[in-house]
């Protein structure tokens, strides 16, 4: 590309002046205005945008909480209650942040589920998918450290149990644990570094989300049929079609979010976390936050500590290689009758594990978690690799437009509608 001013299409002189020197308006127009998007998205495709909004909400509320929070074992609990009582609208900021974490996981679980159901991880979107798994891992680390900050009983004991898991690794285990703790038990240095990292990680997530979106805008979005768009008749410009659709989804999301925050703000939390941390009193049952329960159940399903830890990490790690485990070229489960049932069963197993994770480690929950864990992994390691060879997929539609519009004539100008300028 030649050096020199960008050839801008914008009429507004100020916008044009900036755009010639730094074409961000052209870029926004290309990536979020005219960006060709498959015309057949269902509402599952809202969840990426919802996750983005959720991340922004978490960062905004988190910054305000950090202004009033004190990361010290003697003051952390009281400083959180001070936010609830004495800071103007502190209760609102804190409950939004607290329930925002749950909303984030609800949104991201659905987002991941959608990717798995409609085969969004398959070529050419493998890297896009893997970046998504990285985001998920970073989210889990951030959420875990955030839950420690109020320094309640579950904060303390959750941190103790989870950090202790690393001691299962041979040779480096104890060294890692000492590094996480900043000492020889969960104490003030632990709280300090968790606060620091909890503030840092969201910005790392922003960075990886940026890469996730860059990768998305190279391959374009998948769609419920899993068939690539073959031309302009198969796509719509992102704006106004999907901005309008996302706006509606966003309001529904806000209604669910607001219902939690304003009416049942503590429903998803554990009452024990309103008891200040006490290293001398162990809670009867130590349970992590609800979004970690399936993985916690996998951990406890294995009688061996190292085995359990490896399997728990493996349950996420397996997602990284999912694009290569699934050998079928057909993306959407709509056309894969056996894979569809296998995946829905996997979804049931996920919820079963979530339930078992909340229950005490005793029968029948242990056996049930073992069966569900076995299926969780069998789906990825046995069923998907085999089905690519054994399953006979249903006939795929010729194109998106044909499937959506029944092969009739295309509405004039729908695809190439000129965009309103920002």
């Amino acid at each position, binding site marked *: 590309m030649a050096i020199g001013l960008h050839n801008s299409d914008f009429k507004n002189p100020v916008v044009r002046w900036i755009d010639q020197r730094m074409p961000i308006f052209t870029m926004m127009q290309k990536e979020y205005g005219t960006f060709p998007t498959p015309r057949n998205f269902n509402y599952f495709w809202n969840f990426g945008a919802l996750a983005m909004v959720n991340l922004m909400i978490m960062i905004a509320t988190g910054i305000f909480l950090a202004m009033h929070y004190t990361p010290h074992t003697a003051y952390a609990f009281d400083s959180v*209650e001070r936010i609830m009582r004495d800071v103007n609208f502190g209760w609102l900021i804190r409950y939004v942040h607290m329930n925002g974490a749950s909303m984030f996981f609800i949104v991201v679980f659905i987002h991941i*589920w959608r990717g798995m159901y409609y085969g969004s991880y398959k070529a050419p979107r493998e890297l896009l998918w893997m970046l998504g798994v990285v985001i998920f891992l970073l989210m889990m680390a951030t959420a875990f450290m955030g839950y420690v900050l109020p320094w309640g009983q579950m904060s303390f004991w959750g941190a103790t149990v989870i950090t202790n898991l690393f001691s299962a690794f041979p040779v480096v285990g104890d060294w890692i644990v000492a590094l996480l703790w900043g000492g020889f038990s969960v104490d003030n240095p632990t709280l300090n570094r968790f606060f620091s990292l909890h503030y840092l990680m969201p910005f790392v997530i922003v960075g990886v989300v940026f890469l996730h979106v860059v990768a998305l805008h190279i391959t374009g979005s998948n769609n419920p049929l899993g068939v690539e768009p073959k031309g302009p008749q198969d796509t719509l410009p992102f704006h106004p079609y999907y901005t309008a659709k996302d706006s509606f989804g966003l309001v529904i999301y806000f209604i669910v979010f607001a219902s939690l925050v304003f009416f049942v703000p503590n429903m998803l939390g554990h009452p024990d976390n309103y008891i200040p941390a006490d290293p001398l009193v162990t809670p009867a049952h130590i349970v992590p936050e609800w979004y970690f329960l399936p993985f916690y159940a996998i951990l406890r399903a294995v009688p061996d500590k190292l085995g359990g830890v490896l399997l728990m990490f493996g349950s996420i790690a397996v997602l990284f290689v999912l694009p290569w485990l699934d050998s079928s070229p057909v993306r959407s489960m709509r056309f894969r009758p056996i894979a569809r049932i296998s995946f829905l069963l996997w979804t049931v197993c996920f919820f079963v594990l979530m339930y078992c994770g909340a229950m005490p480690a005793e029968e029948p929950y242990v056996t049930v978690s073992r069966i569900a864990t076995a299926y969780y992994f069998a789906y990825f390691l046995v069923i998907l690799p085999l089905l690519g060879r054994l399953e006979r997929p249903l006939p795929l539609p010729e194109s998106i437009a044909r499937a959506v519009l029944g092969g009739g004539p295309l509405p004039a100008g729908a695809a190439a509608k000129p965009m309103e300028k920002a």
Partner: protein
Amino acid sequence: MLRSTLKAFAILGGLLAIAPAPARAAGEAIAIPDTRFSFDGIFGTYDRASAQRGFQVYKEVCSACHSMRLLSYRNLRELGLTEQQVAAIAAQFTVTDGPNDEGQMFERSGRPSDRFRRPFPNQQAARAANNGAYPVDLSVITKARLGGADYIFALLTGYQDPPAGVTMMDGMNYNRYFPGHQIAMAAPLNPDQVEYADGTPATVEQMARDVTTFLAWAAEPELEQRRAMGVKVILFLTILGGLAYAVKRKVWADVH
């Protein structure tokens, strides 16, 4: 489209339904009876008269052992007490302040800005005075117990003689609703233990209800503001959602 939307909501509902499960896991399962309180439900508010009586119960009974370190006397204004009444209540207590210009700690009468006076200087002193048991801080007690206000009310009214065959440990009391049934706290409320200024008969149930209302307010003083705001926010979002859906329909009209 509708089908997939319903599916999305089904999943969301599933997540929300299963989510409170960790709460259920704690402790042995003792069914806590559901008690009707003024602050139940979406539109519930704290019964101010009951909460004020509850404060009296706390002050005259509970505060002999239990602290409420997160509350200040000034917070009582929210229960409908006047500035003078709050100042008079605070003045009943002696507070250690200082150091003064000579470097000495000194005693003065309480002010509205002071935290509730704590019955014991530290946990060790509290345990020493209570047969080894620690009377917990009550600031956020309804948020910190499974069952919330229902549990507190049930506990306060759940004392009875141990059933035949149950051997009690030394100094323990039988309570129907306490996990394990053996609680160090003796039945704190007895009929006519306090004398209510408004003439309400001080039955155990009445005192338990009043003090539970007070403790629920202490734990969640923002509850009324939160719910009032929530109703407005949901109404606003519902209308906005209708508009957003209409816009979406209009935009998509030419491509469907």
